[in-house]
């Protein structure tokens, strides 16, 4: 039984941690908001002045903005599609009993622990390079023209790289969910004459839906801010074919040295991420209540 007194004491005890965390979030956010209303370019010191929504108008009217927005959504959508479908299939595979199961599982998880910059560089130089890359070599073996991945299909190439990193994550969560599936249900359905496809679509998929929801939510949060892979491979190019919102904000702030517009872009990105999150919650939140 906590008394009024001890509850107040508890609040005072945890307040330093809470206040610190709050500052951790509020100060950068506040500064970003402040800068976004300021005309502030690093190359022109002493020109800072209050401009109201000028930076926002400028950022939103940038021809690169709509491209970046579409690219962001395509990237998130593409990676989600690949990881959820691929993860489900891999999880089904790893759920079987076979020799060396433990080792294979550990190997499957490994890509998730490779740093994004490292995996992107390996992909860029060892796989996707049109002259020395493995993919070009394979194409050569079959007598095909090698694809210059990063300049012809930049966004798809980056989607594949990011998918490679996130596939283990999806696999791991879905595999855990699969293992909690009641074997008796499967056996009962077999007795009733359900084929493997019916079993998959009517029993396994509904069972996995909640785990799938978690995968989609967590991945979306991380994928909206993909940056390292783009920076080390295509630099947002060619043109702005692989520029997403995060990269556009970086380009404004650190390539054009326009801190004001960069900050405005950051605020726009926060708002958009929240809109996406709300829609996601609406669409699949039902699964979580069940």
């Amino acid at each position: 039984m906590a008394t009024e007194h001890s509850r107040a004491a508890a609040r005072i005890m945890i307040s330093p941690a809470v206040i610190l965390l709050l500052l951790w979030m509020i100060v950068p956010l506040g500064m970003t908001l402040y800068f976004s209303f300021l005309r502030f370019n690093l190359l022109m010191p002493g020109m800072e002045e209050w401009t109201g929504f000028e930076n926002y108008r400028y950022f939103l009217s940038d021809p690169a903005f709509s491209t970046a927005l579409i690219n962001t959504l395509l990237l998130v959508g593409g990676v989600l599609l690949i990881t959820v479908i691929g993860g489900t299939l891999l999880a089904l595979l790893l759920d079987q009993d076979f020799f060396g199961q433990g080792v294979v599982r550990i190997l499957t998880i490994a890509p998730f622990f490779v740093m994004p910059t490292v995996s992107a560089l390996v992909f860029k130089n060892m796989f996707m390079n049109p002259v020395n890359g493995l993919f070009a070599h394979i194409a050569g073996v079959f007598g095909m023209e090698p694809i210059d991945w990063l300049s012809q299909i930049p966004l798809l190439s980056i989607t594949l790289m990011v998918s490679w990193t996130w596939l283990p994550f999806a696999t791991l969560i879905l595999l855990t969910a699969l293992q909690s599936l009641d074997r008796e249900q499967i056996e009962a359905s077999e007795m009733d004459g359900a084929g493997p496809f019916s079993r998959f679509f009517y029993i396994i998929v509904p069972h996995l839906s909640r785990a799938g929801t978690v995968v989609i939510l967590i991945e979306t949060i991380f994928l909206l801010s993909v940056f390292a892979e783009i920076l080390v491979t295509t630099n947002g190019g060619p043109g702005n074919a692989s520029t997403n919102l995060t990269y556009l904000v970086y380009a404004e702030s650190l390539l054009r040295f326009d801190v004001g517009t960069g900050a405005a872009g950051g605020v726009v990105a926060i708002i958009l991420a929240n809109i996406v999150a709300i829609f996601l919650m609406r669409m699949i939140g039902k699964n979580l209540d069940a």
Partner: protein
Amino acid sequence: MTFKAKSLYGACAAMALATGASAQDTTLTIATVNNGDMIRMQGLTADFATKHPDIALEWVTLEENVLRQRVTTDIATGGGQYDVLTIGNYEVPIWARQDWLTPLEGMPEGYDADDILPAIAGGLSVDGTLYAAPFYGESAMVMYRTDLAEAAGIDMPDQPTWTDIKAAAEAMTDEEAGIYGICLRGKPGWGENMAFITAMSNSYGARWFDGDWNAQFDSPEWNATLTDYLDLMNNYGPPGASSNGFNENLSLFQQGKCGMWIDATVAASFVTDADDSTVADSVGFAQFPNKEGVDNHGNWLWSWNLAIPASTDAPDAAKAFVAWATSKDYTALVAQEEGWSAAPPGTRTSLYENVDYQAEAPFAEMTLNSINAVDTTKPSVQEIPYTGAQFVAIPEFQGIGTAVGQIFSAALAGQMDVDQALQSAQQQTQREMDRAGYHDK
């Protein structure tokens, strides 16, 4: 110096003492670009260490685009990370006017600032005061393979036109053998592909802005420039050219994969160096091409310079280093260690009057002529409101040039055609100039 840095230095010094090494009084952090001459300089710093045992050097070596971004951010925010910066002649006057650089007055005995080529020194001075010391200077010229030209029956004139270049590229291309007629920059960046394309546009009689600072990408001259550039690269250039910058093209040329390469004169000593280049004995040189009827050879002038930010905490040590790296003695040191042709070119009159250098560097005369032919006050034959060379000397040019460079790189990668590229370049540039307030004047 910040408190954190101080305690770090203290810790470092304590560790150095503990391990029995002598603690050095000052540490200079030097930001530099990963070009061959700079890498060579790092290899020769033992000489500096013997002359200045009390100064330790720390190098931060970065790729050109990244270096610019880091250095600009650091200097604009007063970060004070670096004691010596490697910057181009584009930044020097702009930054000097912002009071971001330490004036290089009172250089050590024997530095002889009057020996610096007037064209180069002029670009590094504001009101007669030198703000940066040139490490090497360059213009641009054509480097071509004499053996391939001979085999193809091409006779390259000393002052080729773009028509000659196209004919030569066509004749030299042999994709079966992996030889591409022409290698040009395609990597986006105002100092990468835009340096070349802007110089090319100068030689086509195009200009960036008219007298009212309106972008001119919708002009027929620009259309001709970009059309011919893409035409050359798509028909006779190497694959994946949209990610080739100076260093990538250098290595392609050294491996014998390019018939011609039009780029900085500084590359000449690398392509004729038998240790690195497989084609060292068969390189010829010609002046930057012009278009028939346009008397303009691109007007490319660039120097990489060492400057000292105003935020440094060791100005005297920094000055000592800058003087060492850009002195006649350093040139002599390089000549002694690696031969005269490796000497940093394009900065000092005395080098070009040196008989040994003339004998060893077949490109010396063409380099000097190219540099002397540049007029930075008049890069284009049309009326213009700016000065510059293969760049426009306004602070906004970094951002605009990089954005336009991205667009042209995309055109090279086949993502858009000439008209689309020029239209978006026009829109982007007008937008940026609007925002910077050039059109309200």
